[in-house]
């Protein structure tokens, strides 16, 4: 039953998705690949679309995967499933807000777990990138040149900050430029 599988997968992603958009990618990727819902290539395409459209990347992926796997109902169900754990957990926190802040602020178990999760999240993001380096996504040396150039432009403002490097580090602009490079190089 594809709907049940979609629901369980995206509920899991919502429940364990610590650390925001990029960290969630490795979870989504593992789910869609293990179910055979998407190839790595398709997954990169949807991440690209998410980068140039507004909104949280998790919602975008849930909607897209849900639609390709289970049509309109699949997309509604997947989007609901990724939000549901947030609803349960955040509402519990809100309802016990004062109890919660008193009990957990400065609590070593809580603070240390969050600190360690931050380190793990860096590993999750790295794995998301590593898992996407495949012969279908990096087809030739030009791919690596584009990869290196985008890395450089993204990191440059941290080393040398001015108006130009700032503008050039914008992800939407970089994707558009990469698309343009693709058109020039690969269009027969």
């Amino acid at each position, binding site marked *: 039953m594809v709907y049940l599988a979609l629901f369980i997968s995206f509920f899991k992603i919502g429940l364990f998705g610590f650390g925001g958009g990029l960290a969630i990618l490795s979870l989504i990727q593992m789910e869609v690949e293990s179910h055979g819902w998407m190839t790595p290539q398709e997954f990169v395409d949807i991440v690209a679309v998410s980068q140039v459209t507004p909104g949280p990347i998790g919602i975008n992926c849930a909607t897209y995967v849900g639609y390709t796997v289970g049509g309109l109902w699949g997309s509604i169900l997947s989007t609901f499933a990724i939000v549901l754990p947030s609803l349960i957990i955040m509402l519990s926190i809100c309802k016990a807000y004062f109890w919660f802040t008193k009990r957990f602020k400065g609590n070593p178990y809580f603070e240390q777990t969050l600190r*360690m999760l931050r380190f793990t999240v860096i590993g999750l993001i790295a794995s998301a990138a590593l898992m996407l380096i495949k012969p279908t996504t990096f087809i030739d040396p030009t791919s690596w040149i584009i990869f290196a150039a985008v890395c450089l432009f993204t990191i440059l403002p941290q080393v040398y900050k001015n108006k130009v490097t700032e503008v050039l580090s914008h992800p939407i602009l*970089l994707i558009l430029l990469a698309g343009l490079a693709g058109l020039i190089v690969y269009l027969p």
Partner: protein
Amino acid sequence: MLPLIQREVVDRKGWIDEEEFLNMIALAQAAPGLIAVNSAIFIGWRVGGWRGVCGAVLGAVLPSFLIILAIAMVFQDWKEIPAVEAAFKGIRPAVVALIAAPLVKLAKSAKISWVTALIPIAAALLIWLGHVNPVWVILATIVVTLVAVKLLKR
């Protein structure tokens, strides 16, 4: 996205004050799930209880949902167009770079050391080469930390 939320709910509407906003960010980031959605739930609850939550969550989710739905409906056909295909061949490595490049900044802001760097390296290798589900890596981090804090307390 957070500065955008701050301008709207703190400065313009005055739904919550500055201090509460900072508490909200801390909670929305600590809790699992999407930070934008978690923030919407917090603010919705503060402003209008259950109804507020429903409204805020729909507001946070619906625009993305509709945009992506529209794209999903046409994307399969568009991908057949040679120009689109060529553009995406260039875009794919760029997307991987956009995922990888922020790692430098994240590592810096987490004040990573040579010892603590072993955690992300181990996590990445387990998932990438070991095909371990990230869920287990996250659970292991939580359990090991809780046990370690407990042992160190003694």
